[in-house]
């Protein structure tokens, strides 16, 4: 027998380039069909006079839809609210995620239980979560109001006013606050997991060295932990901001953008306009207003994350 008999056969597994493309193909197809196509369709729609009744792309109106949308009184409010909700959620989520990760890297009794509790909102179905929050901040049966009344912060002759209820979803700032709170609640577990992964990857030596060098908790946090966490915080910010800025579910299930347009946000307004209101082209135009913001945010966050990561290598 000659040597060739004993050599293993060269198969598909050895052809790295082909194998790479084959494995990438499903996700490429998926992105093209479900992200790329709708995106270009939206651009096309936004420049026509298409409606739900007549969704054909032929009545070309150029940037007319954008101008039209810009002049509506709801637009500045929706834009403002989208920014407020996104920034508010982002800041609160990052602060709380950092705090939670600081807590969870330490060892204490009941840590496993706390971990499960902290991760729970993530595992909760949206419908259940919505019922939860609707009831929690209900206009009449809100347990939060009940608690506030019991500690004499709410009700006749108390700091929060004579009324017995706060009507969270019926007021501009309470409504926005509620939307921020719900967003923080549902995004915190994911952000915490990301930040905790970054936190545990910092060598323990560094923290012990800081202890020996005389640093207390806050100095360690601001001089050592946060700078080291910066790249991962950027990643967490990007995810959180993109998820909140593009989300309409929380608003739709709570305030519905009201009263008036006081708590309206861009994605829900786009939905109401395009699908509920039937003005498909105007809805697409509103949705596209968000695109440059989202794109710029994504590019910025990626660049900052990259820069922070390579910082250690620069002279």
């Amino acid at each position: 027998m000659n040597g060739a008999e004993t050599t293993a056969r060269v198969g598909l597994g050895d052809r790295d380039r082909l194998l790479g493309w084959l494995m990438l193909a499903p996700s490429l197809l998926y992105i093209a069909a479900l992200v790329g196509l709708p995106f270009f369709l939206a651009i096309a729609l936004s420049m026509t006079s298409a409606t739900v009744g007549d969704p054909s792309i032929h009545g070309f109106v150029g940037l007319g839809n954008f101008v039209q949308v810009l002049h509506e009184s709801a637009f500045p409010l929706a834009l403002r609210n989208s920014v407020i909700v996104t920034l508010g959620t982002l800041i609160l989520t990052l602060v709380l995620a950092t705090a939670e990760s600081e807590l969870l890297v330490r060892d204490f009794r009941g840590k496993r239980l706390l971990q499960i509790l902290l991760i729970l909102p993530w595992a909760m179905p949206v419908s259940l979560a919505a019922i939860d929050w609707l009831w929690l901040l209900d206009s009449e049966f809100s347990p939060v109001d009940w608690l506030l009344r019991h500690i004499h912060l709410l009700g006749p002759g108390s700091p929060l006013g004579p009324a017995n209820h706060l009507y969270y979803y019926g007021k501009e700032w309470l409504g926005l606050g509620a939307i921020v709170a719900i967003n923080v609640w549902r995004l915190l577990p994911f952000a915490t997991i990301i930040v905790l992964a970054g936190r545990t990857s910092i060598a323990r030596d560094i923290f012990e060295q800081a202890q020996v060098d005389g640093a207390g908790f806050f100095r360690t946090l601001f001089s050592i932990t946060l700078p080291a966490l910066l790249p991962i915080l950027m990643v967490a910010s990007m995810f959180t901001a993109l998820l909140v800025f593009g989300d309409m579910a929380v608003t739709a299930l709570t305030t519905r953008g009201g009263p008036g347009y006081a708590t309206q946000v861009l994605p829900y307004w786009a939905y109401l306009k395009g699908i509920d209101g039937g003005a498909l082209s105007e809805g697409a135009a509103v949705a596209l207003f968000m695109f440059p913001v989202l794109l710029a945010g994504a590019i910025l966050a990626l660049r900052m994350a990259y820069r922070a990561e390579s910082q250690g290598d620069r002279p």
Partner: protein
Amino acid sequence: MATLELRGIKKHYGSIHAVNGVDVVVAEGEFLAILGPSGCGKTTLMRMIAGLEMPSEGEILIGGEPVTHLPPRARNISMVFQSYALYPNMTVTKNIAFPLKTRGMPQAERDAKVAWAVGIMGIGHLLHRRPARLSGGEKQKVALARALVRNPALFIFDEPLSSLDAQVRTMARGELRQLHDRTGVTTVYVTHDQLEALGMGDRIAIMQHGRVHQLGTPQELYDDPADTFVAAFLGAPPMNMLERDGRIVGFRAEYLLPSASPAVAHDDALSLHMHISQLEFLGAEWLVYGEIENGAAPQKLLAKVPPAVAATLHVGERRQFTVARSRLRYFDPTTGLRVRDERG
């Protein structure tokens, strides 16, 4: 500068006794090496001195003051970790200034201190670099400068040379000892490398299973090991050990030499007929692997001989080797402890 006193230190994790009763007094300005195999408890002991772990029992005193329950930052100790633990996001200057900053020292004073430490370590050209851009040797110098900068009561070193290349290590050993002699700071140096312990320590504490087996100068430990563990652990190669007349007889390989005249057996020397099984070149000397008949089983022995002597030896031959009686050390076969030789 201060003394360090460990009184009855114990540390257990559940049923595991990592440190099991250690009493050591380190004099002011002394360089104490703690030596032992991995898992002997030396690292746990060091972490308790630093305040990173609390002892289960016992007391720690630095400069006569009890510090057992104080956190690390209240102990005025400097520590150099095996990894050097430089802060990755800070430049060299900021790394060195950090321990001063935590004490709220004013900027001007801080700068002067940093400049002083930088001068001693000779790292003026590295000041604006970040740790990722430093070599192993440079990192070590920065870590030492950071340890030095605040005049600590105590230096603690955790195997600081183990991540350096072998070539740099010998030089670093010398530099480290010089640094200690220059500053006179009491030093605890933890290592598993006996060359470091023997070469640098004023005294060595040899640990195993959470206990100090022997505490003494490198010469004492080498020449007069307190038990068979120390005898077998210290020295390369370890001490030869034979069972004779109900005792263990130990002697170092360099004292086992071929007799000049085979016929003569001295009364003041132990004579052994050894079968030479292998000769190994070590550079300055040769290592002779031999076997002797000792009761039922043959016993392996090692001898270290100069090249001139090695030239007269041949693999496979049987030669008479002798050890001067004054070089023999006796141990109890059950306890392993040293026993004095009644005859001499």
